[in-house]
């Protein structure tokens, strides 16, 4: 059963790049949302996570703030 993964990111943030590389290496499909280009999505990210730092990674209903590799591994069973 595939979990739905969304990455809220900015193109310039190093940890966003690491997070996306990590997902790609593990063959995890995800939707990348560039919050610098989309004010509405930026607001959605703030509402979901209660904070303004990127990246925010949504795995189904669970919100991970920052590139927390161990938590992501655990949630995706990788």
């Amino acid at each position, binding site marked *: 059963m595939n979990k739905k993964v969304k990455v809220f990111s900015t193109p310039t943030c190093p940890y966003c790049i690491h997070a996306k*590389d990590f997902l790609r290496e593990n063959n995890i499909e995800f939707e990348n949302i560039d919050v610098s280009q989309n004010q509405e999505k930026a607001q959605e990210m703030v509402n979901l996570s209660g904070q303004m730092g990127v990246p925010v990674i949504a795995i189904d209903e669970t919100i991970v703030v920052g590139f927390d590799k161990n938590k992501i591994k655990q949630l995706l069973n990788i």
Partner: protein
Amino acid sequence: MYELIIIGAGPCGITASVYAARKKINFLLISPDIGGQAAWSGDIENYTGYQFITGPELAKKLEEHIKQYNIPFKEGETVTSIVNADDFFTVNTDKSSYRTKTIIIASGKRSKELNIPGETEFKNKGVSYCATCDGPLFTAKDVAVIGAGNTAFEAAIQLEKIANKIFLINIGSRPTADEILQEKANKNKKLIIFNETRPIEICGEKFVSSIKINYQNSQKVLPVSGIFVEIGLIPNTNFSKNTEKNDKSEIIVDANNRTNIPGIFAAGDVTNVKEKQIIIAAGEGAKATLSVFDYLTRL
């Protein structure tokens, strides 16, 4: 019991690890992340062998390099203390504890904090230490940059492309950034510089809404949504109480990376080596492991 524990996985700790693996030392690498400050850097054009590489790309290359040697790496662990015994050290982390004969401290530096009310409370809720990362979230908003050195002006220049008004808050009487950066930043009419100004408090409800400042001896409130703290770096040495440090809290090392404690070595930005450069940190890491190797053979 390990022969060596390397603390930190920036360019310094990783180079030290590669050398340790090649010397077949029984060692462990411990770090909360890979790449250290290099992972946060923008464009790198002075690391020989690469005419141009970005910070995240270099971090990736470093990671590949340790993978090639199967280096035992405790990623995501932070060292909390070092305890000296007669002939070994205990390295405690937030998850476990390890015994070792020698240590290389390569824990680098981190952003300095303001230490004013509201700063911790509003971290990532308007307070940021990385304009490159979080800047785009402040599109068309008013923001403050604290600091007046090169990184503060670089942050201001980045934010000029995104934010509405940028207040640059400088404790000193004039900015210390390179002239070329100041000229570039001042070209844009969005930048307002407050000299001789001290930030006092960060205010807001759920998110930052203003900053209280003391501007030339009178209090003033600037309504802002974002506050970017760019006041320099401090060494990560909280876990290492007994090593001797200079007035910048940097660990003092000799030419062979030895500290005042036999068996503890240090290298890279965490030390008093004057120049803080990626290539220098990497070189120092190599030196430190070779010194450790020499030390271990004499035990």
